[in-house]
């Protein structure tokens, strides 16, 4: 959920950016990174750990931890926390939905 009122900061949540996540339409705002917009849309499970396939979320959100990699417009392993959201972006998670655990 977006912060509505803040004693210090003013957020300009006006210009909508439309994108898809796993083919589902979603809306973010101008200035959002892909990661921020996904978080606001309720996405918490960003990737799976490499060996044990445990769910991972954003951990650092500034490009250090590597937990938020996704496929963006066909490019694999994009740091979603550092990449600005653009109109019509096609974001696909690299989570293996067929895992049996």
């Amino acid at each position, binding site marked *: *959920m*977006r*912060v*509505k*009122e*803040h*004693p*210090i*900061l003013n*957020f300009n*949540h006006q210009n909508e950016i439309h994108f898809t996540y796993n083919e589902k339409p979603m809306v973010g705002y101008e*200035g*959002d*990174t892909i990661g*921020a917009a996904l*978080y*606001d849309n309720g996405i*918490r*499970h*960003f990737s799976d*750990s490499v060996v044990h396939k*445990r*769910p*991972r*979320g*954003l*951990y*650092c*959100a*500034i*490009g*250090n*931890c590597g937990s938020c990699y996704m496929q963006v417009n066909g490019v694999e392993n994009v740091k979603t*926390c*550092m990449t*600005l959201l653009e109109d019509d972006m096609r974001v696909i998670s690299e989570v293996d939905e067929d895992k049996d655990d």
Partner: protein
Amino acid sequence: MINRDLVIVGGGPAGLSAAKVALDAGMKVTLIERFNQLGGQLIKQTHKFFGSKLQYAKTRGFDIAKILIDDLNGFSHDQLEILLDATCVALYPDKVLTVYQYGKYMKYNAKSVIVATGASEKILAFENNDLPGIYGAGAIQTIMNIYGIQPGKEVVMVGSGNIGLIVAYQLLQAGVKVSAILEAASYIGGYLVHASKLKRLGVDILTNTTVKKAVGEEKLEKIITVKLDEKWQEIPGSEAEMDTDVLCISVGLSPLHQLMSMAGVKMVDISELGGLVPKKTCDYETTVDNVYACGDVTGIEEASSAMVEGRICGLMAANHLGFKHPNGEQLEDDLNNQLCVLRQGPCGEKIRCGLKKVGEI
């Protein structure tokens, strides 16, 4: 190959400050920043800084970032090249750097390099500590203060150092409930002025308490806390459950040392400074000629000291290559005095001790 007098890696308080002084001395500078804007972690700091007027005390962090960025206005593109969305992926001992930006790799050949890469957040060891919903304090600040998104319904903070206390307060400002702050030690780590403000607002700070286990399927649902004795051992039977969708980990930072390790700089492990730091001279030069380091990457401290270190570093890089800063000698004395003042007193003891150890090894 692009030739430059100075390449600075990192556009936070240290890197920006170094750039300004080096430019004033006449160097041609390239500043490399990984994010899409300059300012480093200052851009999400909404609190007013301590220190003295010389380091912009009483000014909010994001406003300090604006000041430092504005200081770089007025230099031509030939003098100052700023690369945003650019990651320095390699630094070699001959001061060749590989920079990745927008799908392309570029090579820079620098006469000198300043590494001002800052730090990354530490994680705490407990069961299921990788569940989504468990975030570093910096991530919470990013989500909340840059993008204006509430990280969750309620937050439990782990760690009562200044960052933990300040971020807890910022959560309240963003309209998010802070259920409690857990502190493994028997005392509150941060300044009492911050802790008192939180206590007045009804946030409990539980000392001798840590998180034992996180519980949840796809994401965090609750945590199990446990009491610790004076020797930091768990007290059996003291476990308690707390429902929460967000756990914020604020247990310190460690220097982002990788580029320097790659360049063959001699590194030393100093716990007071947060981990691996470069061995350096009093001129901030590492063991590789004309490779300098400043800010959190040389030891975890405050943004105020990172700015002062950055300025000294810029000056030293200029001096060593024969560039004369118009006000060099006086500036050097002033800056060294500022650092001494910042590191005075009980709050500076840890950093003084750490820096002494770097000198001794």
